[in-house]
């Protein structure tokens, strides 16, 4: 039986993931609409928009980092479960936990490096070089550590649920 705090926090993490996924999907749709309007402006009205390239790149950064954790939660990042299945059943749970810890380690490395880059962007307060719109880097990069932090929390939620499942048996 999982403790209440774990159920509640897992529930919150899942909800955040749903919001993140929906927002990421909206960004994907926005990329389509922005490029579509540029196609119309460029080929029909002969008036291309110079900002499209930059704005779509920024939206892709948001779309990716927001969907990072929900994809992990849904098992959407491709993995190979063949080797795990070949192991005796009693080892499979242990291997899953090892895998969870490795994913956690990766998430922590990703988070700390992204955070360091983002803090640097905040300190420098620079705008993107060679960009047609004066967008400050910090406003785009800041989604990186947020997405990575959610990735860590999702890994922790999956891992602790599994640990309690094992204890329950």
């Amino acid at each position, binding site marked *: 039986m999982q403790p209440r705090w774990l159920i509640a926090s897992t529930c919150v993490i899942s909800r955040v993931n749903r919001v993140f996924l929906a927002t990421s999907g909206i960004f994907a749709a926005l990329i389509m609409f922005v490029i579509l309007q540029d196609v119309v402006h460029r080929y029909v009205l002969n008036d291309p928009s110079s900002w499209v390239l930059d704005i779509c790149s920024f939206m892709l950064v948001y779309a990716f980092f927001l969907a990072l954790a929900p994809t992990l939660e849904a098992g959407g990042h491709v*993995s190979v479960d063949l080797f795990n299945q070949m192991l005796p059943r009693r080892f499979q749970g242990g291997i899953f936990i090892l895998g969870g810890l490795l994913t956690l380690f990766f998430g922590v490395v990703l988070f700390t490096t992204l955070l360091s880059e983002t803090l640097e962007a905040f300190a420098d307060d620079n705008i993107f070089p060679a960009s047609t719109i004066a967008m400050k880097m910090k406003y785009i990069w800041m989604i990186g550590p947020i997405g990575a932090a959610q990735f860590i929390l999702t890994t922790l939620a999956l891992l602790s649920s599994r640990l309690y499942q094992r204890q329950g048996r």
Partner: protein
Amino acid sequence: MEAFAGFAIFVIALLAFLATGIPVAVATGLIGVIGTYLFVSPYAVSQIAIIAFSTTSYFILTVVPLFILMGEALAVTGIGRDLFRAAQLWLQRFPGSLAVGTIFACTGFSAVCGSSPVTAATIGAMAVPEMVHHGYDRRLALGVTAAGGTLGILIPPSIAMILYGVITETSIGDLFIAGILPGIMIAALLSLTVVLLVLARPHIAPRQRKTIIWPERFRALGAVFPVLVLSFLVLGSIYFGVATPTEAGAVGAAGALAIAAFAKKLTPAVIATILGNTARTTAMFLLLLIGGLFSAFMLTRLGVPQGMANALIGLDLPPWLIVILINLLLMVLGMFMDPMSVLVIIVPVFFPAILAMGYDPVWFGVLVTINIEIAAISPPVGFNLFVLKSVVPDANLSEVISGSLLFIVPLAAGILLLILFPQIALFLPGLVK
């Protein structure tokens, strides 16, 4: 030899990490982190963040969610069913007409969808039950659909080619154009395999006796007309240089959504599913790319790809034999990894050798793509095998595997033909230039 040892250690470490069930992207990323920390510099680990930011803000990659969105939107329209019906009616006289029709339907769907599992799932969900209903051998029905689904990553637009283009800095437009003729060739080889199989063992695909009138055929063609127009718009605009792949992707995605709306399939729940799937697949794809690029960064800093290139060229072997050996390695790895992972792991290592031997990067891209098509149907971890098992409820995995194995032969024959006649891939890009 050091380079080979380095590569061998990399593959062993990768397999060890994969054995824990972690995502492939996490495994390649971790190897990059550990390798960089131990052998390059602890400070260089921060490169993973730089790669993550630069990859996700790379404008070319906005094409990824667009083509995924296009495929996801079309998958809900029922166009797969219409394509299958049209192909079935037009090819009725062929031996194994339903199976050949399945390949043609996959070919048509591949022209608007860049994903192999989505193609296999969309066509397979109705083609397999239909074939089984008409007395087709279950293994043939499942095998032909799994193999036909692989066309999704060869016939443009192709997610695998975008990945290859980004890793090797090869023009994605050229890759798309180069994939057209090999895609048609592979579809023809798969169809030929079906016809020969059915001629040898007629009981596996009973001939259809129903008389079909011509107006019925044209009506069926009318149902797939919007998709034909959409694929022509997307591929034609890239081919004739009217639009960039990104612009074509946006028009394609909007067109697909319009077709879905016209077919009255776009409920709020369906839109949420389409956008959710698009976001998830995009994240999966980009994380795979980031992990692959970071491990490639580490290998490059250690001189592994360059060392491999020098060692391979130094071998007293003709270049074509080296290409075949690389292909064999791809096939073996494809048995244990999904197609995209094979691509991000192998291409950065062998690409310098391919360039050094004077081969065309576009040609190699098509070759690698056909090879990872084999990976998609190679047991034990062929993606399409599992996709089919999940969309055809009563299918069992051993039937899917035994049915698919035979179709590795035409795909391998396609690779050989492409090695012998590179112009199959290079003819159309050459025309455009």
